[in-house]
């Protein structure tokens, strides 16, 4: 582990200088490093302990570390692979490559250490490295960076404060040593520490009320880096949540509230509920495809949080499984968007259309990605959704179940918007000559598609990792036998479902083939109510796709506006103070008057 982190730290420098020779070398270094990391960490036995830079036993390889680092490294390898070609569009390619490697260094460090201070340092490295990548994106990305840094620092300062609180009580920074003793502390202390430590996770994984940065940052960051942001950096927050919920004896620390769920988890579940609601309904009304997926990330963060906070055999496993599903799906989707932007140069849904006939592989990637996000079998997205639903229903938590249902069905709505607007429909005249993305870009997308379907049909591999984590935290592990998954409300078999799906598909295909063949007609041979059309660009329904639904919640309160107005209030106060301390005649008169008034008032 130490050597891997060392290689990464050096790799950042090497990557910087190598990309000066040729831009493409930077991503290649990152690819090599992540593949090497994937190989070492995959084979590393769980429970290994190592020193780091002379500090003893700081690195500890737990089941949770393994799970999250494998996700991270998969996402980063695909990202690096994709970047080999894409880097030609990057604004500052050297810094971009170097900082990408540094981000990987930071996140891997976070996953590998239970030492809270070391974790904090790695965390800040990841945040700062990614912080400098974000403004290399679109015009507004500089502003977005401010959102990112403010919310991130809220999270990390909460974390730091919580860490020192723990240190002052227990005199150690090692999380696993603390976790045994904390249950006996006072209620106020327990609440404070848990909220502070989880605050970092909440801020990072875009949970309400700290979700506002995702839209700006994901929407404006460089196109491929959005994939890392949504697929991986946000998962750092989920890691913190999973780590503390698992390592602390939450169930004994707080009193029971409803259906065996303790009050603290319940607060988290409600945050998750609100995130799902906000994420879903805001995603439905976005016209920018990257911002749409950013809100989808908020909603899926809510799912993960609900699953993890349930802290039981099925729900916790579902939450963990959802991490990998969403990581893969978000990476796929953002990479396919990056390919689309690479060719067309826009992210607005209603400025595109009909790209499927030009970029079929990109389309298939997006399609499988959304099938997984929407939780439809036979992709892996369904497995985790099924687990979360089963757990919620078996506990009788119907209000939360309602939110998850709304989120799940709402996701059909928002994922369909780019599908219909960007890939289907009429091909715009300006895009007539668009070509499919280059092969190097397609390969990582195809790999991700294959992984998603593979783990949807054969979820055993992931479930082994997930149950290892559950065993590490002393939970009853999720029960599965081959492809048959069990919960306390019955079971299902992903292989049977897949076979049935194939059977249905073959029957349909046979009927289709037997019947007279259809004649191929061009896209502009349409039913137009008998009207002759001139400009088929306009015969495409993408603007305000769900206008009839959006109307219903047009005047919703916005947290982004609310935060902005707080900032404005602060700015105004600052301006006032500034005005009063400036050495001008009016300020001088004001102070004089004030002093005189005070004197007069006090004396007489």
């Amino acid at each position, binding site marked *: 582990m130490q050597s891997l982190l060392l290689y990464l730290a050096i790799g950042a420098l090497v990557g910087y200088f190598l990309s000066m020779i040729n831009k493409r070398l930077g991503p290649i270094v990152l690819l090599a490093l992540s593949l090497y990391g994937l190989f070492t960490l995959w084979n590393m036995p769980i429970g290994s302990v190592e020193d780091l830079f002379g500090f003893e036993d700081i690195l500890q390889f737990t089941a949770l570390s393994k799970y999250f680092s494998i996700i991270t490294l998969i996402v980063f390898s695909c990202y690096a692979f994709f970047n080999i070609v894409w880097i030609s569009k990057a604004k500052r390619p050297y810094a971009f490559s170097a900082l990408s490697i540094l981000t990987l260094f930071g996140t891997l460090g976070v996953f590998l250490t239970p030492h809270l201070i070391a974790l904090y340092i790695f965390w800040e490295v990841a945040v700062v490295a990614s912080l400098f990548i974000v403004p290399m994106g679109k015009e507004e990305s500089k502003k977005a960076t401010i959102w990112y840094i403010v919310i991130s620092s809220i999270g990390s300062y909460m974390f730091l404060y919580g860490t020192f609180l723990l240190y002052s009580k227990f005199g150690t920074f090692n999380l696993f040593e603390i976790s045994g003793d904390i249950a006996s502390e006072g209620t106020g202390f327990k609440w404070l520490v848990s909220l502070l430590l989880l605050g970092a996770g909440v801020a990072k994984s875009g949970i309400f009320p700290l979700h506002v940065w995702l839209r700006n940052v994901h929407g404006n960051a460089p196109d491929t880096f959005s994939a890392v942001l949504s697929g991986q950096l946000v998962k750092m927050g989920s890691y913190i949540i999973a780590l503390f919920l698992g390592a602390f004896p939450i169930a004994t620390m707080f009193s029971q509230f409803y259906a065996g769920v303790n009050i603290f988890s319940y607060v988290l579940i409600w945050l998750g509920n609100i995130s799902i609601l906000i994420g879903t309904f805001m995603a439905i009304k976005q016209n920018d495809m990257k911002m749409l997926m950013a809100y989808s990330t908020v909603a899926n963060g809510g799912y993960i949080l609900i699953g993890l906070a349930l802290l039981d055999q099925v729900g916790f496993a579902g939450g963990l499984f959802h991490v990998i599903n969403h990581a893969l799906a978000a990476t796929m989707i953002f990479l396919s968007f990056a390919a689309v932007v690479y060719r067309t140069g826009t992210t607005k849904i209603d400025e595109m259309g009909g790209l499927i006939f030009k970029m079929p592989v990109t389309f298939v990637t997006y399609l499988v990605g959304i099938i997984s996000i929407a939780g439809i079998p036979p992709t892996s997205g369904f497995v985790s959704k099924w687990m979360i639903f089963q757990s919620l229903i078996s506990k009788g938590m119907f209000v939360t179940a309602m939110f998850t249902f709304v989120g799940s069905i709402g996701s059909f709505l928002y994922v369909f918007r780019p599908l219909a607007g960007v890939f289907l429909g009429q091909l715009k005249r300006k895009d007539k000559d668009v070509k499919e993305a280059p092969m190097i870009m397609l390969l990582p997308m195809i790999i991700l598609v294959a992984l998603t379907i593979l783990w949807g049909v054969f979820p055993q591999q992931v479930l082994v990792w997930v149950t290892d984590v559950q065993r590490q935290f002393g939970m009853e592990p999720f029960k599965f036998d081959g492809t048959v998954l069990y919960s306390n409300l019955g079971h299902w078999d992903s292989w049977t479902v897949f076979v049935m799906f194939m059977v249905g598909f073959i029957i349909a295909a046979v009927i289709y083939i037997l019947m007279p063949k259809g004649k191929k007609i061009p896209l502009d041979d349409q039913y137009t109510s*008998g009207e002759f*059309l001139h400009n088929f660009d306009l015969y495409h329904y993408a603007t305000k796709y769900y206008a009839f639904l959006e109307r219903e919640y047009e005047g919703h309160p916005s947290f982004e506006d609310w935060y902005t107005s707080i900032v404005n209030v602060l700015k105004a106060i600052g301006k006032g103070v500034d005005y009063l301390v400036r050495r001008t005649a009016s300020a001088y008169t004001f102070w004089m008057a004030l002093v005189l008034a005070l004197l007069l008032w006090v004396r007489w």
Partner: protein
Amino acid sequence: MDKIEKIDERGVWEKIADQLRSRSMWMLHYCTGCGAVELPPSMTSRFDMERLGMGPMATPRQADLFLVTGYLSTKTLRRVIYTYEKMADPKYVIGFGSCTINGGIYYDSYSTINRLDQYLPVDLYIAGCMPRPEAILNAFTKLMDMIRKGEADGWKRYNENYEWYKQNQLRSLGEVVVYDEFHE
């Protein structure tokens, strides 16, 4: 034409298919002229067209039977041809009223065409100005008979004599100049 015995070229499957087609005719009524007003009574409870397996359809793609219900100005004819060409084979056309046969009372109008079958292959005409629902239903049963016997082959004629029809269409309409008044 009806004096000469026509040779039935259809295979067994086509014959079965024609049986089915005759019993399930989905129609698209291009409501030009006065004829449209006769269709609601033939559809609703008085005459109930659905018992013959017929029903209205929303778009030409789904329809089998094209009803041209009255006079056609050149402007409408253009749309009628456009719509007809969107329909899937096999497709049938019925011309309503004297206007489609010989121009009817508009025979000397400057803006209407007189004979529909110069432009589209009409399978059946219904005489009258306007034909009553009884006549319309009579025509539908007649058309069903024709389909079963393989006589309603207008769509084949259109494909075979496409050049001739196009020529006639062009003569009356000129080149279609598409002009988009809203967006240019």
